[in-house]
């Protein structure tokens, strides 16, 4: 393989000859077009430019891209190009490259944005998404009214499937997490409370913590990662595939059809899962309590029952319902707002989970403050 070379020969009457020799293959050592470009820019400008490729060996895109660069520069400097000296194939490829003119305004110009510009844009984007969320919440509220009054069009079978997905299928993971959380609480309680000789109050600690707060929060976070993400991905994919457009053109409201049944599935299932999670947590606490404290099962259970009030249970259940609404809202809103690509579905799903968890934590704090002030 002979080395690629390019040389510029000054001819008479201000003409220019470019001699190409050797193998011009991508990946080989190719000389750049710079000598020619420099000469084209220099004055006095040549009037014409010709090629000599008699010594040219094999060539591929490596040659053609150099020729394109030379042609562009020649065009910009008003130099006539005579391409008859080029191999026929290369000549055609160069002609093809210039066959369609660059569309005006098509080329993207990237420029560094100023700090204030970026701040302004993110604030505007934040306001815009807050407005979208409000609009969506309003539409959802109207749709819920239609759902409850039986005027909404949706598939009953879909609803039962959502119930199953958000309910029975979540039992194993809820059992595991709540059982372990109950055990962890009991460990902490046993370690600290036995210092005061109050080890039996571990039962109170576990029961109250699980029923009032932890079961609802843990179930909520599990469901945000499980069901909220699934909602965003399902609805987002339907958006990408024009399936939502197909619903709309049929005269069906996509919120009635896709969102509201999912929201109600979570509203129904979250409290049930939370009660179940509380039981599992108390069970976990009992196991640790019996193993580490000097108490009988009867003592532990009696202590647990004495510590629980109906208010705590209802407080926990109400939180569960609120979390359920928020998880479904985050998941479905992100799904409906999804862009038109596979990448956008991934982003929507991520956002659905993050927002779901943020909503849960914020509402947990707000509700707890309200509960304390109401003395519940």
């Amino acid at each position, binding site marked *: 393989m002979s080395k690629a070379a390019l040389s510029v020969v000054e001819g008479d009457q201000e003409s220019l000859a470019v001699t190409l020799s050797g193998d011009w293959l991508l990946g080989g050592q190719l000389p750049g077009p710079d000598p020619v470009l420099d000469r084209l820019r220099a004055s006095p400008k040549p009037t014409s430019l010709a090629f000599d490729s008699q010594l040219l060996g094999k060539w591929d895109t490596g040659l053609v891209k150099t020729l394109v660069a030379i042609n562009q520069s020649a065009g910009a400097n008003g130099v006539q190009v005579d391409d008859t000296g080029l191999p026929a194939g290369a000549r055609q490829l160069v002609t093809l490259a210039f066959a369609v003119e660059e569309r005006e305004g098509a080329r993207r110009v990237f420029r560094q944005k100023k700090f204030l510009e970026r701040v302004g844009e993110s604030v505007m984007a934040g306001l815009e998404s807050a407005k979208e969320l409000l609009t969506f919440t309003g539409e959802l509220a109207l749709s819920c009214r239609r759902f409850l009054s039986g005027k909404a*069009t949706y598939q009953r079978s879909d609803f039962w499937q959502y119930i199953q997905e958000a309910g029975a299928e979540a039992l194993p993971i809820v059992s595991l997490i709540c059982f372990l959380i109950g055990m962890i609480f009991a460990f902490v309680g046993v370690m600290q409370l036995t210092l005061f000789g109050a080890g039996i109050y571990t039962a109170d600690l576990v029961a109250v913590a699980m029923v009032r707060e932890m079961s609802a929060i843990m179930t909520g976070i599990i469901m945000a990662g499980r069901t909220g993400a699934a909602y965003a991905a399902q609805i987002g994919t*339907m958006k990408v*595939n*024009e*399936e939502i*457009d*197909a619903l*709309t053109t*049929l*005269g069906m409201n996509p919120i009635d059809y896709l969102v509201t049944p999912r929201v109600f599935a979570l509203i129904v299932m979250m409290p049930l899962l939370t009660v179940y999670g509380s039981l599992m947590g108390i069970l976990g606490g009992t196991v640790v309590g019996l193993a580490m404290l000097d108490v009988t099962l009867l003592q532990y259970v009696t202590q647990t029952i004495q510590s629980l009030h109906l208010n705590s249970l209802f407080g926990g259940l109400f939180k569960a319902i609120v979390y359920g609404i928020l998880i479904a809202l985050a998941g479905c809103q992100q799904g409906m707002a999804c862009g038109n690509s596979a990448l956008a579905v991934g982003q929507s799903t991520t956002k659905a989970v993050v927002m779901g968890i943020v909503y849960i934590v914020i509402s947990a704090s707000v509700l707890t403050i309200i509960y304390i002030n109401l003395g519940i």
Partner: protein
Amino acid sequence: METAQPHITAQNLTMAYGDFLIQKDLNFSINRGDIFIIMGGSGCGKSTLLKIMIGLKTPTTGDVFYDGEPFWASSDAGREAVKRKFGTLFQSGALWSSMTLAENIGLALQQFTDLGAAEIREVAAYKLMLVGLAGFEDYYPNEISGGMKKRAGLARAMALDPEILFFDEPSAGLDPISAKLLDDLILELCESLGTTIVIVTHELASIFAIGVNSVFLDPVTKTQLATGNPNDLRDHHSNFEVRNFLQRGEAEDKAA
């Protein structure tokens, strides 16, 4: 055409995404039973025009009239009622992926008619037979080929015996034989049911085979350059761009 009034009329339609103008001043009318082609180069706004006609995107100005009634100027309820007369075949088929083909077709029937489950299934089976998919009732969309999805999408679009069928690039992604079969199917449906058909396409073979009337959108001037029978436009239209498009870039510029 014995009906004096056109079935669909577009008046002064302008469409834009934000500040970005797509097309302006579109005026055309479609007679009942016509096969109407929306054509033009890539990116000229053909699909956007279709979206406006089926109610997925609001026009910036102007309106579409169905049987003389304005579409965008009417109430939501009025628009829903008009939409009930549409059937739409989307570019990708857009079948609901969580439902079988029979359920896809049956959904509209279930929502908008009083038919029982058994009758709905019969209708769905019959519609699938019409598009050559007999026996595929219980397949899911991901279990069939692209051409079959298009035909299943057509069966779904026809579920409610619509007065107007909209097609977005029906032959895109199909081999020439399947595309031809789909064209024949569209022609037969149009003849036997008297449906008005609006098609977005740039497949010249389809345009000449089935088009009765058309509008040509131009991405450069951002307006319509011509409207009429595509065969006439190809041979006689005064605008070079139109002739050149319809003759596959081989028109002579006879600078009339």
